[in-house]
């Protein structure tokens, strides 16, 4: 059970959060311009890495804010959390 440092509220138990999949996938600004394949790439294709991964999380039972997290899926180590719209502090 993780201890997550919500960028707005501080450290809270994982049970207050919900995970929202891969981070930094921008919704295309002009979906109508895209081919089926390009749209499918945005819609369906997600990474599931063993290792360091960029993820979206929501403090669902807290401030309801979405934020990003850099997590190593092999050992659940959280390297960083940062607000939506901010640049990742690590690469």
């Amino acid at each position, binding site marked *: *059970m*993780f*201890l997550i440092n919500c960028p707005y509220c501080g450290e809270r*138990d994982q049970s207050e959060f919900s995970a929202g999949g891969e981070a930094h996938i921008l919704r295309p600004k*002009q979906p109508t311009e895209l081919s089926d394949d390009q749209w499918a790439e945005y819609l369906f294709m997600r990474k599931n890495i063993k290792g360091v991964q960029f993820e979206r999380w929501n403090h669902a039972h807290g401030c309801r804010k979405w934020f990003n997290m850099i997590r190593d899926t092999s050992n*659940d180590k959280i390297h960083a959390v940062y607000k939506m719209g901010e640049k990742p502090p690590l690469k």
Partner: protein
Amino acid sequence: MSKNLRITNSKFIDQTSRISFKFDGKTLYGFKGDTLASALLANDIHLVGRSFKYHRPRGIMACGPEEPNAIVQVGNDASMTEPNTRATEIELYEGLEASSQNCWPSVNFDIGAVNNFFSPLIPAAFYYKTFMWPANFWKLYEYFIRRSAGLGKSPTEPDKDIYDHKYLHCDVLVVGGGISGIIAAKTAAKNNSNTVLIDDKNILGGTTLFQENECFKINNSYSNEWLKKEIKSLKSLKSLTIKTRTSLAAYHSYNYLLARENLTDHLDINEKKDKIRQRLWKIRAKKVIIATGSMERPLIFNNNDRPGIMLSSSIKKYIDYYGVKCGQKVSLFTNNDSAYETAISLNNSGVNINSVIDIRDKTNSSIVKQAEKLGIKIHWKSTIVNTNGYKKINSIEIMQLSDDGTAVVGKKIKEECDCLGISGGWTPRVHLFTQSGGKLNFRDEDNVFLPGKSELDQISIGSCNGDFELDEIIKNTANTINKFLKVNNNDYENLKIISSKEIDKKNIWLLPSDKPLGKTKPFLDFQNDSTANDVKLALREGFKSIEHVKRYTTTGMATDQGKLSNMHALGIIAETAGVKMGELGTTTFRPPYTPLTFGAIVGRNVGEFFDITRKTPMHDWHIENKAEFENVGQWKRAWYYPIENENMHEAVQRESKAARDSAGILDASTLGKIDIQGSDASEFLNRVYTNAWSKLEIGKCRYGLMLNEDGMVYDDGVTTRLSENHYLMTTTTGGAANVLSKLEDYLQTEWPELDVYLTSVTDHYGTVSICGPNSKKILSKVIPDLDLSDKEFPHMSFKNALIDNIRCRIMRISFTGEHSYEINIQSSYAKSVWEKCFEAGKEFKITPYGTETMHLLRAEKGFIIAGQDTDGTMTPVDLQMDWIISKKKYDFIGKRSLYRSDTIREDRKQLVGLLTDDPKEILEEGAQIVAETNKQPIEMLGHVTSSYFSPNLNKSIALAVVKNGKKLKGQKLFVPMKNKTINVTITDTVFLDKENKRLNA
């Protein structure tokens, strides 16, 4: 039975307070401080169970959680009985009733024991191999297999006990109250860290507590005396909390741990009542110190499972702690020094030691010398090749080991005994460390897996970290803890420690016998009855991975999870396959460490507290009016209101007719309500709904359909424009939370530039819906000064109004197709408004109706229910709702997906109406629809999504999704049921009032 097996000088058992208990129906006596196991042994009862597969007699083997054999059923009350509990962990209490498991009719005469004679025919995976064919016989086999399998009996009634959950936060958690745990806890607490020390026993001290031997001294005192002083000073430390009878169950990431505290299990049966039985602690610790010690290994030799064969260290605990002699003529069999401690303890308590059989050539450690000085006979370089005695061991057969240890040589010596202590060395309890994600290293010298790398702020100390000698334990623990806690405690620096040192080590995983392997029974896993031969067979049959061998042979898969058996299984696999043990690795250690009761897991979340129950403000009225309720998500919704002896069908038919003929009243409070405000609110709605919102006038309502980005219908509802920048959105009852969360997601992550604020107001307003041709008259009685004319207050519009000076919002919207109003009012007033409407409607015979009637009425009109007629694969086009997709909008959620190659296919499943040829025949929801019934396999064209008998049309109606359904209007299809085939015709989805005349009636 009258043998006196109890010595008088035990310091831990209160021999003045006698306790009576029952085992297998027989009344026996023990003392306060006993476990069930020690009390049984004091009564000379070793045989306590039968093994799982061969039903061989089995006796108590250990004294802690690793016990594989003495698992008993406690209690015989249908609600309180508990199977698979370890007799070695049950503290004796007045009134305890326990019984053997896995035997019938009794543990002494067990019919299943016939399996033992057939054991050569029941190898590993016997069931897999035998009952494969003929395949259709499985049903028959299963009946017998299920009856013969299984250990204890589950309770058949709900558990009456109370369980509890509690959170705990601390700086330092020390798991294990043995000597190293005590040193660690003391160091931490003296440094003013908020420290918690837990131990699964009822007393701190571990095995050192009863170590009274010349070979182990600290500052000229026996080690136990020194430790007792440590414990005494420990208890005075203010920042330390000690929890005994608390067993750590699980160690998760980020130092989150679960521990089960037994609060009443040790109390007399009449003292337990009304108290919390067990508490599950949810612990978040900044630092964790694991001091869980180690367990003694058995030795693997022919017939090593007879009652009376016990772990040597357990025999020592029974004599030194409980004051119980496990036998009168004891032999000991070992590969290390620890059995000599047992021999000396037994000798000092007046028990005859036949001999110690040691597989080593010779060793001269101080403890061995002490044993020799006491005249204890030692068979060096020897092994036991067989044991005898069916229900209790009565003799052993000893032979010399060959130089390489793979065979036996020389003459066989037979030695009579009534108890055999075995010691195969020690296994560190690394379970918690590995549960937390830590990696293990292997130490070849004494064949132990030790804690290696961990990502967490934790440390293992003492024998669970591979320190087995007293002086090492104290010095290494003190140093390690100082470093780990960054303190400088020098309490343990200048101790004068005397400790016997083990000099010679030797290990043989599978000891040889004079008989060939196939003729012997060297048990590995005592509880699941798997032998070394089974593991070797699995390897011969091609299994290589330890995880596969485990599952194929079931070694380590019983309720003890292989605590005693796993190391030997690994050893034998490594040896046979010719790989190093460190490379082979271990099977996965999973929580819980010992079985947890379901009660402890669920805590207080039972019965009505299992989940949140949401009730509408009018809930009490529904109860007073005898409503039946339906669960919709967490909500309790009135389902129908039966009058006198009406069944559901009759009530729904009456309600549906009344709503169309005169007036009906529905509690619609559960619909999700989201308050949307901000200067970009209209733009936001444009992006989340398929239709256009910018031009919606203030005071008007509009129906909206919300898609997922994949183009599939997600939710629907009516949204009202309350003012320029203020909307009230309604969602489905079940979808409310998800819709809000989805909208927040887009707002925060994709469109942060929009000035929009969302607030859930579902619980803030109650909603009274009145429908039917007389609804207008009723509302005009309730709010006389409101102009209800179609011109002033047309369909799909809203008005603010006052009822008894309380502000409310009236929407003229309809889910039934009738002239209808929804009154939204602050929840606390909703019941009185409901009652007021009901009073006003009495002259029109206003009829309360529930969700079932609501569903029927909307189906007559062909209105969908998102989640019933849609299932996440339906686009608006599939629903024949093309009209709701704005052609002008550049983008909205899901728009692009509506013209992917798959979504524009014409032969997708589409929503249609169905009429049965026989108007009295009601289709079953979920029934499959086919075009022909003769061909096999039949192609499924679709299924029925909604089906009712309409009293207003006097015929059965249904909605269905059918492949290419749009083009099949008028087509005859079939719905094959179990006993008949129903003929149906595809129709339009709207069955009643296609012209929408009733809306303005």
